[in-house]
């Protein structure tokens, strides 16, 4: 089986008719996201994200490598998304599918190519060594809107992650362990997120954060990548039925509002976690002193 179970005709009819009456299956408004929960693992940059029933884990890791020959001042940043049978039985292990390619493209454009992570700050020694940052996305449960969820998780991970400190001494790069020196946060230039809109009933109904069923009933998609300042960094009207040009402008405003909202939630979750860590760190420190 390598296809999602298709939506039945009556289910589709029901979803469309409900939308015509401005109602969604789970009672949300058209511009409302599902409840978002962000938690963190033990390591820095280990984010567990739950958006309704879609859930995923993002892990950020860093290692020292050689920069590319043509860009000696730049570090490396890579987003890795591989769909496994864990997220949905329709996905086959070890084989990529259309959704994987599409989601990778969107994430790459919104996060990596918009320079959200300042790669120049990853350079350690020109042309010799630099940091390579890697974001691995594990999709645990898939219930629609993979790209937005992954985007939020990656951005949270990048802001939460701390890389070990490194200094250059006599042409030798010395990497300090986490115990020796306070690890360093990554340099984030701006915080773009993607917001996916799905259109129904000849573009009359446009909703955000569609569930899997809503995605299956959708006639077209519009993705807007935008940051807190209102700078659009990615727009994609990738497939499906046409959308009125004015809608793109209107929806950009909706997206901006959503992004601001999510970024606030993200910030809150992160500050709470970092405060908890700091407290724990203090406790560890005092305990170590007591031992002495």
């Amino acid at each position, binding site marked *: 089986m390598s296809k999602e179970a298709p939506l039945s005709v009556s289910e589709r009819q029901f979803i469309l008719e409900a939308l015509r009456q401005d109602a969604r299956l789970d009672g949300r408004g058209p511009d409302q996201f599902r409840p978002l929960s962000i938690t963190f693992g033990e390591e820095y940059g280990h984010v567990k994200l739950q958006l309704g029933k879609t859930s995923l884990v993002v892990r950020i890791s860093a290692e020292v490598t050689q920069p590319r020959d043509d860009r000696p001042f730049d570090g490396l940043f890579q987003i890795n998304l591989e769909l496994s049978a864990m997220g949905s039985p329709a996905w086959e292990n070890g084989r990529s599918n259309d959704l994987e390619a599409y989601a990778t493209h969107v994430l790459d454009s919104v996060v990596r190519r918009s320079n959200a992570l300042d790669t120049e700050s990853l350079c350690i020694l020109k042309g010799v*060594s630099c940091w390579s940052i890697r974001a691995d996305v594990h999709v645990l449960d898939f219930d629609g809107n993979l790209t937005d969820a992954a985007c939020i998780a990656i951005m949270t991970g990048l802001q939460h992650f701390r890389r070990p400190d490194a200094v250059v001494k006599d042409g030798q*790069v010395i990497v300090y*362990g986490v115990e020796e020196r306070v690890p360093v946060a990554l340099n984030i230039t701006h915080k773009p997120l993607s917001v996916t809109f799905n259109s129904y009933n000849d573009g009359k109904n446009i909703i955000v954060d569609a569930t899997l069923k809503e995605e299956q009933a959708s006639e077209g998609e519009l993705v807007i990548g935008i940051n807190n300042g209102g700078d659009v960094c990615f727009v994609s009207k990738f497939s499906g039925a046409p959308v009125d040009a004015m809608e793109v402008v209107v929806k950009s405003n909706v997206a901006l509002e959503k992004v601001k909202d999510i970024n606030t939630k993200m910030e809150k979750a992160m500050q709470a976690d970092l405060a908890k860590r700091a407290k724990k760190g203090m406790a560890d420190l005092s305990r170590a002193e007591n031992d002495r």
Partner: protein
Amino acid sequence: MVSAATVAPAAPQSLSLPPPQFARLQPHAYLLAHLSPPVASNQPSARANGRAPSQFRVTSANSGSLTHTNGSGMVRLGDTTAVCGVRAELLHTEDIPSWSVSQSSNANKRRRLADSIKLSGQSGDHEETEAEVEEDRAHIEDLNLLVPNLSLSTGCAPGFLPGAPPAALTQALSHKILSLLHSTRLVRAEDLRVWYQPPNLGPEELERHNDEEHMDVDADEAESKPAEIKAFWVLYIDIMIISLAGNPFDAAWMSVLTALRDTKLPKAWWDVDNETILCSDSIAESRKLSLRGLPIPSSFGVFEADAAAGWRAVVIPDGEKLKAEEKKGTVQKWILADPDGYEEGLSQERACIIVDKEQNGKTVIVSMEKHGGWTVDTEDLRQLVDISARRWDEMKQIMDQC
């Protein structure tokens, strides 16, 4: 044909099958009939291929068969043939991204370690220090100086089609070989290093180097600078299974062993004037690798008499009960050494034991694996280790001759 027709003209032809057809249609029954022949027939129990259960196939090893490699080996295990070629390439330390990077906790340790090894390296077979073990690991494993790659070439067995991505088996074997190279620490890191001993510095050079960083360094260190590693030899170990008739791992690993024993590295040194590494083309100056030990693998497959064991909703006997039954001889199984392709298809449970012998003849187990079933336990494994130890003696002779 004529005689057959005259002797038994009435016998229905359909009831008798020639052995090859029987073997294909009822592989399990066929092998079982060979292993436990009817008492009346007075035939000894043997495998379908005529071997005794603990008998290995005829093995031959040949080294230096490929000319364009630093070392090569070919091992034949019955119809399974593996060829291995070792090619050494120089890797400048400048080209290693992690070379100029050190973890602060052992930043100083590394230099000191390098020194101590330089001193102790020549003194030969002494007790290895922990530092040496660590340094070996740091260089060989972290810098990936050993790169084995195995390929099951098209046509080695009917199942391998051209153009297909490497099968899971191929990748698993590559990993097993690499992790065994690491865990047995077969190759010494010292053999792969290219050192450079800087001459005593002239006064103007001393001055240049004597910045703040070096002021607090002991005076004598400034006089004779420590030797430094300029490059490493990376060994690309390519294994090709030309023909696969079961037990690819044993053949592959022994071909690696033969090839590494045959490998000669040319003398290499750092040329200060050209700022590059030069190699000598004189064979007399090249040197062989000094390997640690000779780990020899023996693989086994377990054939169970009860063909139904797999599909019946079996009530599995307790471990204790199983042992008791085994003593009575009610559970019938044969552990087949060096299974061929036909036998591999009939055995789910596999065991692989890799042993080495120390100078005093003591057997050391280097790796012992078994999975895929529940019949082999302590007693069987003890016997298998004994068989593997005997196999070691046999293989040592074969390898020393080639």
